[in-house]
């Protein structure tokens, strides 16, 4: 799928990441962790082809991602960026249908049979059947996030990129959203997802990509990353590890913020 080699990225003329090497495999869920400003979103944008590498390469099946034609790219990679909406009253059904954009030639204004099938499948996978005629902006944050995921699914791309999809969501809704994404990996979709909650990431991801100090500190299964002192190094704060009743490791800051 995606392979980065010696990747260096800049933001606002400043180099934020250097020497990034990683490979994302089909059907894999990789969570990107790291402190604020380390370049998580920039890395995600590079994976989406929105950023041109300053050095090194980032490729999708052997082709530099930023060189792929936009429509071809969108058929392979779905990026759920946080962005502004038009003050229009978009219905849930409309938002999901927009995901079919890269599959329609410019002269075709309406959805064909294959589009309808993909839209219906996306709606059913995200359990949005009852919301179709609701106005998008009237939905709760969690419901809106589900609609965006449905749009990305309708897009039919085998790779999903998500930037903090659980921010602003309560713990149950966040759990549901991540569960939904994890479900997709069972059908071969790869997920690369920036998260802030370390324990949340550890619970759902196959591997964690840890960024810190302008480079990639680790790309390993959650248990390894959580056990390693690299986590403390990345965030610049000492962490305590604890075991839950069901045997999972969780981390918390060593000192209370008081």
């Amino acid at each position, binding site marked *: 799928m995606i392979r980065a080699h010696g990747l260096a990225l800049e933001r606002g003329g400043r180099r934020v990441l250097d020497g990034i090497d990683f490979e994302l495999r089909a059907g894999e869920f990789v969570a990107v962790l790291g402190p604020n400003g380390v370049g998580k979103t920039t890395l995600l944008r590079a994976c989406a082809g929105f950023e041109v590498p300053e050095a090194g390469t980032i490729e999708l099946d052997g082709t530099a991602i930023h060189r792929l034609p936009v429509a071809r790219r969108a058929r392979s990679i779905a990026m759920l960026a946080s962005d502004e909406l*038009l003050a229009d009253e978009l219905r849930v059904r409309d938002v999901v249908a927009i995901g079919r*954009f890269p599959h329609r030639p410019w002269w075709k204004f309406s959805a064909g049979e294959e589009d309808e099938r993909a839209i219906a499948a996306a709606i059913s996978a995200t359990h949005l059947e009852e919301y179709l005629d609701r106005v998008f902006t009237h939905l709760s944050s969690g419901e809106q996030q589900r609609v965006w995921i449905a749009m990305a699914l309708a897009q039919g791309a085998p790779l999903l990129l998500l930037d903090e999809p659980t921010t602003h969501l309560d713990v149950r809704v966040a759990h549901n959203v991540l569960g939904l994404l994890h479900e997709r990996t069972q059908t071969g979709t790869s997920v690369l997802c920036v998260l802030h909650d370390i324990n949340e990431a550890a619970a759902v991801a196959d591997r964690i990509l840890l960024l810190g100090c302008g480079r990639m500190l680790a790309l390993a299964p959650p248990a390894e990353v959580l056990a390693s002192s690299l986590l403390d190094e990345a965030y610049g704060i000492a962490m305590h590890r604890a075991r839950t009743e069901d045997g999972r490791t969780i981390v918390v800051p060593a000192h209370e913020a008081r």
Partner: protein
Amino acid sequence: MFLRRLLPPLAATIAAGVGLAVGGDALPLSQVVHALANPHAHDIAHTILWQLRMPRVLCAALVGSALALAGVQLQGMLRNPLVDPYLIGTSAGAAAAIAVALALGVALSLLPALGFVGGLAASLLVAALARRGGGIDATRIILAGVAISALLAASVALLSVLARSISFQLTLQAWLVGSLAGRGWNDLRFALPYAIVGALVAIGNIRSLDALRIGDLRARGIGLDIERAQWSILGSATLLTAAAVSLAGMVGFVGLIVPHLARRIVGSDARALLPASAFLGAAMAIAADAIARAAIAPRELPLGIVLAFAGIPIFIVIYLRREQRR
């Protein structure tokens, strides 16, 4: 929904009927219908209808639908419901070109063409200033548009102060308030090709406008070439606005209000919204022009003033109601 989509063309048809029936000379409806049915007759009713009213109605339709199409595209591109086609400097550029031409004593028949060129030039300047990377920056285009328009408006005011001639003042004033007085087939023939090209490009923009509803970044994520879409939308809006301004001067509010009305009726799907805006824009301009011709006949009210008096209350009601519903 299907019936709602029929409302705008219906409104345009009714407005056209009223526009043909109403005017300075009272013509019984039967004569209007007779003249319409016999385009090759040679009586007075036929002359009034085919040489005066028909081109006026068509000019008004072109002005209204061009401004509405330009407005709906710019609002969609900038995701700002308060944007109107004059934001991109077209009208100020046209006004400045006309003022300079009048000051230099250029023949009146050349004014529409000069207005068109001036409008186009000012829009290109605004677009050049708003460029960032390969695309257009939403904040910059608004700032550049306001700044360039203010500069050009000041130039027009300066010329107006310096010029002593009454005819200069009157002609310039007619342009600034917007009017279709005296417009005929020749003026329509000049503006129509540009409006048609602008409208065709607008049809090509429908897909992009639909994608842009979810935000620039997300639209990029689903495979929209944002830069190309922005230039195409700006190009179409500029051509349409320049065509409208060259015909009627600075007719305000149509490009701002009509997209809102159209969205209320058919929703935000660009496939329905663009044709609905074009028809509603035509309906509004034709109706306002009919009022302009008939209200104080045989004199005429300027179209821009009629539209302002009718349009601003509508806009306020829509905007306030929208805010209340949130």
